């Protein structure tokens, strides 16, 4: 597509099937403590 560039290949809906293992970091523990930021958390699901 010459006028549209898609930056990411991953669709969030795909994670509906394999996500939810809960091994990832609790968002508030990382570096904020006064907000909730999940966008930069790493997925730690080993069964993806």
């Amino acid at each position, binding site marked *: 597509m010459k006028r549209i560039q898609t930056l990411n*290949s*991953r669709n*969030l809906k795909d*994670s509906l099937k394999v996500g939810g293992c809960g091994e990832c970091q609790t968002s508030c523990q990382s570096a904020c403590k006064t907000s909730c930021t999940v966008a930069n958390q790493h*997925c730690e699901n080993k069964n993806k």
Partner: protein
Amino acid sequence: MVHQYKSNGYNIVLDVNSGCVHVVDDLAYDVIAMWENHTPEEITAAMLERYADRPEITRSEVEEVIGDVRALQEDGSLFSDDPYRDAVIDFKQRNAVVKALCLHVAHDCNLGCKYCFADEGEYMGRRALMSYEVGRQALDFLIQNSGSRVNLEVDFFGGEPLMNWDVVKQLVAYGRSQEKEHNKKFRFTITTNGVLLTDEILDFVNKEMGNIVLSIDGRKEVNDRMRPFRNGNGSPYDLIMPKFKKVAESRHQDNYYVRGTYTHFNKDFASDVLHLADEGFKQISVEPVVAAPTEPYAIREEDVPELCAEYDRLAKEILSRRRKGNGFNFFHFMIDLTGGPCIYKRISGCGAGTEYLAVTPWGDLYPCHQFVGNTDFLLGNVYDGIQNKELQDRFKLCNVYARESCKDCFAKFWCSGGCSANAYHFSGDINGSYEIGCELQRKRLECAIMIKAAEAEAAAQEKQES
């Protein structure tokens, strides 16, 4: 649901439900803006009229863009639907394990920060240090209530946790001694103001702790105004800055954050972030104060446009520095468009009151550190476990879909519905919202995506040139 905006010369389209980000030219941007409420014929006519002075935009060009948008829609990456609601609410209701504790090892502090939500360390209560016995019981409680979770997080928090350092060391040793038997892995972290930090402490932290959060607000005058010593004499900045530099270098500029708070008094906070970068730090987190509107340093609604302009300034400067090979990470601009957390994580909220709990020096359990001291939110204690199940059930239902204001927000799958404590303090409801915080969160997300767009463009150019 689609959010489109222009930033730093980029036309960006975010498909909220799929998380897909598209960078488009003007014609595609305008076609997408009309997509939901107009027929293809109406869109074509409107585009030919709008771009009448651009002969290269012909009917077939417009029809090609319309075909592309339709293909993306069919592919589920534009104008996609929302299939998450039922799955996630069910997931959260089932999820009853604890995986993270915020251990308040010291309700005491050697600084008198004016914006401290912990009441200068005392949390509206008495000064106290956690005993080893209470801490050990907290770790046992965590192990026993963590189900099959392997990774367990423990943040040593305060007040100032270095005021109870011996207990911190003992608890790390105890945690390690339990890992093998219970098939657990403790991830210890610490949040400190650095006043008592020594080389010996740093050696231990570097050996045992996966992250260290170093509290500093930026420029000396900004830091010392809001983060003075309790007696008001001397400069905390002068004391901690050399120590923090040593921490950063000793950890190879990774797995730490210098973490600041900005207030109404330093609305030009980008200068504080850049000051920290100029001092050599590569991992930086600076975020808005959360305070009652009556406080003179509180962020006000009328500050928001200026603060948003600062985020734009910061984003452009980060890009400029990265191009020169002198970049740094700004925590709130960090997003992962190719991986990142699953949709369950994105919708479930921060986990306060369910998978994340705060422990007071005497072993009481609260939903998170920000509720400590408000006995309406006392959940139980580390000896008897969760006693107030009704309160915990309320937190189990905290998620993006429980918050009315998240319904039409494009940032909802990136902030996870925001902070329940902030929502409670501003709306009286843990499922309410803190609108100033939301506005700034949306701005940060827009900047973060713009940075990704610019980096993708630079990578494509580099590829072309080579």
